[in-house]
C-alpha cells in the first residue's frame, strides 16, 4: 500500500472540494485503502451531524420569549431608521402631496429658492453702512417701533413744520397757523410739505434734504 493521503485532502475529498486532478488521485487511493475510506466516511458523518446539531437551539433557551423580543426590537429598529433616514422623510413628504399638485409644488419651491438667492445676493452687495441701517430698521419693526425713530438722520413732517433729527439733536422749519396740505417723502432722503395759511390763503412749500 502506498503512503496514505493527507487528512486535509481526505476532508476536502469527502465533500468534493478537492481540485480535479487531486480528486482523481485520492479516489484511486481510497478505493484500495480501507483506512482512508473509513476516514472519508467519518468526515461525511461529521458534516451530517453538524447540520443536525446546528438546527437545534441552545440548551435551556426560551425561544418563544427570545423570538418575540427580537421581533419587537426589529420593528422598533425599522421605525427608528425611518425617522432618521433622509430618503424616508423625503419619500413621505413626496407621497403626502397629490400627484396633480406636485409640478406646482416643485415650481413654487424653485421660485422660493430663487427669491432667497436673489435677496441674499442683494444683501451681500449692499454697502455695509446700509445693511446696518436696514438691520436696525428691521429690528425696530420686529419690536413694534416706528422705523424712522431708529434710522439715524430722520425727517418728520407735521402741521407744525418739518424737523430733521440726528444723534439726539434736531433742526426744524416751523409753520405757525398753517394747515398742512400734502407731504411727500422721496427715497433719496428728502421730504417736502405744502402749507396753506388759513387767513391769507398763502401756500408755503418746504423741502428738506438729508445728506
Amino acid at each position, binding site marked *: 500500500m502506498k503512503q496514505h493521503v493527507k487528512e486535509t485532502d481526505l*476532508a476536502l475529498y469527502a465533500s468534493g*472540494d478537492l481540485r480535479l486532478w487531486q480528486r482523481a488521485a485520492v479516489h484511486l487511493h481510497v478505493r484500495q485503502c480501507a483506512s482512508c475510506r473509513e476516514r472519508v466516511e467519518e468526515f461525511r458523518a461529521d*458534516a451530517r451531524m*453538524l447540520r443536525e446539531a446546528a438546527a437545534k437551539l441552545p440548551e435551556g433557551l426560551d425561544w418563544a420569549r*427570545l423570538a418575540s423580543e427580537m421581533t419587537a426590537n426589529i*420593528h422598533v429598529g425599522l421605525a427608528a431608521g425611518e425617522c432618521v433616514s433622509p430618503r424616508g422623510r423625503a419619500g413621505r413628504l413626496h407621497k403626502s402631496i397629490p400627484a396633480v399638485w406636485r409640478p406646482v409644488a416643485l415650481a413654487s419651491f424653485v421660485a422660493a429658492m430663487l427669491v432667497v438667492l436673489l435677496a441674499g445676493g442683494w444683501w451681500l452687495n449692499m454697502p455695509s453702512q446700509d445693511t446696518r441701517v436696514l438691520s436696525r430698521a428691521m429690528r425696530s419693526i420686529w419690536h413694534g417701533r416706528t422705523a424712522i425713530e431708529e434710522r439715524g438722520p430722520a425727517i418728520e413732517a407735521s402741521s407744525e413744520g418739518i424737523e430733521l433729527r440726528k444723534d439726539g439733536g434736531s433742526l426744524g422749519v416751523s409753520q405757525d397757523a398753517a394747515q398742512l396740505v400734502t407731504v411727500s417723502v422721496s427715497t433719496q432722503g428728502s421730504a417736502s410739505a405744502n402749507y396753506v395759511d388759513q387767513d391769507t390763503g398763502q401756500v408755503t412749500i418746504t423741502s428738506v434734504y438729508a445728506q
Partner: protein
Amino acid sequence: MSEAPGSTRFDAAPLSSDHQTRFVEQNMRRVFLLIYRMVGNVADAQDLTQEAFIKALQRQDQLKDLDKAAHWLSRIASNTAIDFLRRSGRVSFSDIDEVLEPVTTAHENNPEQLMLRGEHHAYLEAGLNSLTGRERTALLLRDVEGLAAEEVAAQLNCSKATVRSHIANARVKLRKYLERPRRKGQA
C-alpha cells in the same frame, strides 16, 4: 435546517408591516442559529440577528431575484456576524497564516465532562467552538448553509484556496476533537 427557508415574496413596493412580520417569523430561527453558531453566544447572536433583519428589510429594494430571498438573507446574516467577529478581533480572513485563539476553552466545555453528562450536542458545540473564528465560519457556510467553496470565498472576501484550507483544517480539528473521549475510553 429543520425550518424551511422563508417563502415571503418581495414586491417592488416596500413590504407591509404584516409581510415584514411574516418574513421575520419564517426566517428568524434559521438566521439566529446561523449567527449563534458563528459567534458562540446567545446575547451577541440576538443583537446580530436583529441587526441582520433590520438591514435586510431596509435594503429590500436591492433584492433582484425573488426566489433567492432566503439565500440573500443568509448572506446578510453571515456578513453581519463576520463584521462583528472582525470588529471584536476574533477573526480575520485576509491572512491565512494568522493564528487566532479558539472562542471558548472554558473548563465547563471540557470534552470528558460533557460526554459524561451525555450532552452530545453541547459536546459538538464545544468542538465547533474549539475552532478559530474563520475555520468555524467557513465550515458552517459550507456544511450547514450548503454554500459552494466559491460562494464561501466570495462571502468571506478571500481566495478559494484560503477557504479550502479553512474548511479542511476545521474538519480535521473537529474530527480529532470528537475522537478524544473515544480514545480515552479505549485506553
